[in-house]
């Protein structure tokens, strides 16, 4: 599928990509308040890649960069998890909830409107997983899109 779609589709794609990315990031960083989180937001961001691939046919090959982003996201995720272990508790312990640092606020019990500065490690992990998922799904789409174009190869 290495040809461009019509001008209308391309223009709409250009306009839509930035709001879609922002919406995906919104889903990620509000993951601890509203439905959403790393996976959903990452998938939405990856759908912007899908839009670009489909509208322009060929997309510049960011394979190595995307792979690095994926690795960095996962590495930071597991390091965040292991930090709980090194800080005296166990792996995946939420050590920064309610301590007042980054995302370290406290929430009132029960129903509340939701404050962004809460959650401890949970929003951070959300962001890392979001990075990973967005990069991974984009990579899958890129690879499969490229593979669907090429002709048969002899072994």
């Amino acid at each position, binding site marked *: 599928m290495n040809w461009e779609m*019509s001008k*209308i589709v391309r223009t709409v794609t250009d306009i839509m990509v930035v709001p879609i*990315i*922002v919406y995906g*990031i919104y889903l990620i960083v509000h993951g601890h308040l509203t439905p959403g989180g790393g996976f959903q937001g990452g998938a939405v961001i990856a759908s912007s890649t899908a839009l670009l691939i489909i509208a322009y046919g060929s997309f510049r090959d960011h394979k190595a960069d995307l792979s690095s982003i994926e690795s960095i996201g996962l590495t930071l995720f597991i390091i965040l998890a292991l930090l709980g272990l090194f800080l005296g508790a166990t792996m995946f312990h939420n050590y920064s909830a309610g301590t007042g640092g980054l995302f370290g606020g406290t929430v009132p019990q029960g129903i509340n409107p939701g*404050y962004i500065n809460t959650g401890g490690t949970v929003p951070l992990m959300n962001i890392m997983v979001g990075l990973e998922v967005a990069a991974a799904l984009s990579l899958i789409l890129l690879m499969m899109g490229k593979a669907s174009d090429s002709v048969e190869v002899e072994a």
Partner: protein
Amino acid sequence: MDESKAFVSTFLLALFVYLFLTLAAGRSMIEGSILWSVEELVLGISIALIVGAVGSSILCRSGNYRMLNPLRWLIILVYCVPLFVEMVKANMDMAYRVITGKIDPGIVRISPKLKTDLGITALANSITLTPGTLTVDVDDETGDLFIHWINVGKNPTKTIAGNFLPWIRRFAE
């Protein structure tokens, strides 16, 4: 110069979308109001910076910075009114055709003579939403639109696009 323009426009769009989505949610800056909290604003600005860096080459691919003028956005908002009126008419017409089944379709060519991609797109989408017409294809060089018209009449360019063209020229050209 162009790069900074592109960055600024992308930044503004991203910030606008983010602030729009988080308006009236969570703790507010002033107790009881609908505004954002300080953390939210900081987060929004940093996100907009990132998105501006990543997405500026996509949003401003055409190199058209006319939309940075706020007046044009106002015109778009005003344009919604005639569009809505046209849509009401269109749907009355559509209801009539669905119920009676009287159709006389055909594909016609119109030449709106618009220059920018945004204008062509806006026109095409408006046409698709309104009286018995549907954009099938677009000529990439001349910007001519091919319209599937459910009840073919005379002078297609004027009949189909006549109401929209002045508005679109105003905000997109």
